[in-house]
Structure formats: structure tokens, C-alpha cells
């Protein structure tokens, strides 16, 4: 890892341990390649929400404090994501923090451009409304920018390099990655009215069945990770009960907490009875659980 530290004199956020291996590529070119990839990731992952009506409405009227908290909580998630799987190899926490804000800046910029293109933000709107709409979209767009590395990889060498970094995920690290996956995938449907509508259409028995199916699906993913020979998945104790309790059940608990938090953030479950809140949480928990368990395969 010595060569990474030496590169600290390069532009702060886009230094790359690869530059040494491929000296013919100039640093400036590297910088633009990473920048383009991050923008690509931001647009790729945020476009469904950029084209979702509820996101514009929420951006305009949602509780300002909840939006601020949501944006604030994105920072530690992005820092952690950068540690495990950022858009470039990082050499320390400071580097992860720098990358986080670069990702956020890219997410913010791409959101401004796209919302402007779609005519969602217009000059005559109040600053509050414009900033609200952009900051809400920036959350998911900055995740996309950070994800760019693992999903839009340019060549095999970088892939190998990122595999090396991924191996360091501990148990907490895996739970963290599950949380990130849950936030990321559930966000793409969480703001829609369908979350409430689906829960209203379901009886309690539907809800129970959905929770059970979600748990089984999660366990299938966990099982796939445990036995795929995926390096980072190695855990000492592979008995069914141990894997089920330590990954599937804990993962589902995280998923439910995150779903509840996101629904609260969007005000979707305000003034509802607890049982109704729980029902909607289990509904959103379905995509969140898929995101959580798949993240261990993808990231």
C-alpha cells in the first residue's frame, strides 16, 4: 500500500494506485476517467427517482429537519461505502471523507442538471423548494457516484484491486453493507404512493406471508453468498441456525429499521396506528431486503 501514500501529493480525491502500474495514462486523464465514471453512476442509479413525481413533491413540502437529518446520515454511509467499495482505492479515513464529499458534489451537480432538464426546477420557484428538490435527489445520486467503481469498472486490474479491498469486510462490515444495500434499493420505491396503497390492499395475513417470503428470499441470498466461494463471505460457523440468525434475521431487523426510518423521513406513515406503520414497513422491507442481501453479492 506504500505507493498509495506517496500519491498524496496528487489532486486530493482522484489519486489512484493504478497510476504507477500504467504510467502511460496521465494523471489528468485518470482524473477525468474517474469523474466521468462517477457521473455515469450518479445518473444511472438516480434516474428512476429523478423521474418520480413524488420525489419532486416531497422535495418541495417535506419536513425540513427530516430532510436535513437524512442528508446528514448519508455522510457516514458514504464514508463507509468508500472504505469498502468506493470509486477509487483509498488510503485512509480522511481519503474516504474526501471521496464522500466528491461523490456528494457529483450527485448534487447531476441532480441540478437533470431536474433542470426535466423542467422540475425553474427560476421562478422559491430557493427553499429548489434546494429541497435537489438535496433529496442528491442522496441517491451520490450513492450512485460512489457505487460507480464496483459496477462500472473499466478494466480487470482495477477489478482485482477492488476485490482485494473488499476482503477486509468484518461481521460489522457485512452488516453495514447490508444496510447500505437496503437504503439504496428501497429508496427507489420508498417515496411512491404505492407503498401505502399496497399496504392498504393487504390484509394482516398477506403481511405475515410477505414477511415470511422476504425472510426466505433473504436467506436464499445469504446462502448463495456463503457457499459461492465469495471470499468475503467466509465465516467460521456455517450451521444453518448460525447463518440464519447471524445474517438473515439480523439483516431483516436492519432492513425493518431502515424501512421504518425512510418512511418516517418521507412522512408516509405519520398519524397512523402502529400496526399500520408496521404493515407499510414490511411492504418497503421487501425491496430493502433484496437490496440488503444482494449487496453482499454485488459489492
Amino acid at each position, binding site marked *: 500500500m506504500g505507493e498509495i501514500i506517496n500519491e498524496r501529493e496528487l489532486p486530493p480525491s482522484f489519486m489512484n494506485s493504478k497510476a504507477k502500474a500504467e504510467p502511460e495514462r496521465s494523471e489528468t486523464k485518470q482524473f477525468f476517467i474517474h469523474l466521468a465514471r462517477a457521473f455515469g453512476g450518479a445518473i444511472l442509479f438516480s434516474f428512476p427517482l429523478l423521474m418520480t413525481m413524488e420525489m419532486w413533491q416531497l422535495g418541495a413540502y417535506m419536513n425540513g429537519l427530516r430532510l436535513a437529518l437524512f442528508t446528514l446520515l448519508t455522510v457516514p454511509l458514504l464514508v463507509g461505502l468508500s472504505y469498502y467499495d468506493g470509486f477509487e482505492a483509498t488510503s485512509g479515513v480522511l481519503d474516504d471523507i474526501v471521496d464522500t464529499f466528491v461523490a456528494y458534489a457529483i450527485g448534487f451537480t447531476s441532480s441540478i442538471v437533470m431536474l433542470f432538464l426535466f423542467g422540475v426546477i425553474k427560476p421562478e420557484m422559491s430557493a427553499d423548494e429548489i434546494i429541497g428538490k435537489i438535496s433529496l435527489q442528491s442522496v441517491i445520486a451520490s450513492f450512485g457516484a460512489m457505487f460507480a467503481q464496483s459496477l462500472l469498472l473499466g478494466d480487470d486490474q482495477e477489478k482485482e484491486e477492488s476485490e482485494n479491498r473488499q476482503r477486509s469486510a468484518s461481521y460489522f462490515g457485512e452488516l453495514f453493507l447490508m444496510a447500505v444495500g437496503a437504503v439504496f434499493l428501497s429508496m427507489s420505491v420508498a417515496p411512491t404512493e404505492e407503498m401505502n396503497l399496497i399496504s392498504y*390492499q393487504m390484509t394482516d395475513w398477506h403481511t405475515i406471508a410477505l414477511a415470511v417470503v422476504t*425472510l426466505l428470499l433473504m436467506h436464499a441470498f445469504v446462502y448463495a453468498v456463503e457457499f459461492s466461494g465469495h471470499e468475503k463471505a*467466509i465465516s*467460521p*460457523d456455517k450451521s444453518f441456525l448460525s447463518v440464519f440468525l*447471524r445474517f438473515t434475521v*439480523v439483516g431483516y431487523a436492519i432492513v*425493518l429499521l431502515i424501512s421504518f426510518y425512510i418512511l418516517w423521513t418521507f412522512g408516509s406513515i405519520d398519524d397512523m396506528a402502529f*400496526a*399500520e406503520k408496521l404493515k407499510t414497513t414490511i411492504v418497503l422491507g421487501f425491496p430493502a431486503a433484496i437490496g440488503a442481501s444482494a449487496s453482499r453479492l454485488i459489492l
Partner: protein
Amino acid sequence: MAEEKSENQKDNQGRPKVTPVWEWIIAAVGLILVVVAIGTTVYRAMTEESTPPKLEVVIDSISPNGDGYLVRFTVKNTGNQTAAAVAVEGKLKDESETGTATLTYVPSNSERRGGIFFTKNPQQFDLQIRVTGYEEP
């Protein structure tokens, strides 16, 4: 991350060989959460029978608003089915004015708020407000 360093026994991947106690503690907390979530729903499914929505309207406030007056109300659903497209009608007793509002959803055991505008002061007339209909979601 730092938590790995506290474990002495590790395999060649840097992972502890025996499942640490705190992993089981986390697993227990997770299990409790999931059991409570599913258990609550099972309990409700077994104990409550499905009754149609029971909707009642309560007037929260009557205040001057622009050229007229605003009557704000809360609809409470005490039944255990959700009502959609809940139509609320406010009528002045002398039949001189009628106003309506539609609430998209009133979930079971929950409340939703709305408002109706009048040109005359509803406080000087006898205001009647009621739910006239709903749709099953």
C-alpha cells in the same frame, strides 16, 4: 475496521475462528425485533375481525381565510379497514352553502386532516359536517 483487532484467534482471512459472543448478542437483538414485528401482525390478524371503516369527522377550527372562512377538520377511522377517496361534506343548516373535500386515504385506526372553504361565516349558521362516502383501496 478496528473491531477485528480485538479478536486474538484468527484464520488466514483475518477472521476470528469462533463466532464471537457479540455476534450472538446482535443476532439475539435482531431476532427479538423480527419476532416482535411479525408477532404483532400475527396477533392482530388472529384477534381482530375485519370490520368496514368507521369514519367520524371532528371540526378542529373555523377561521377567516382570504375572502371567506376555512373550516378545518380531522377524519378518524376507528374501523380496521382503510378507506380511500373519503368524501367529506360541510353544509350550512339554512342550505345556503355546501362545501366538499376529498381525503385520498384514511388508514385504519388513523387520522387524516383536511379543510373546506365557505364564503359565509359558518359560526353564524349551524354547520353540519359528515362523511358521505369512500372507496375500498
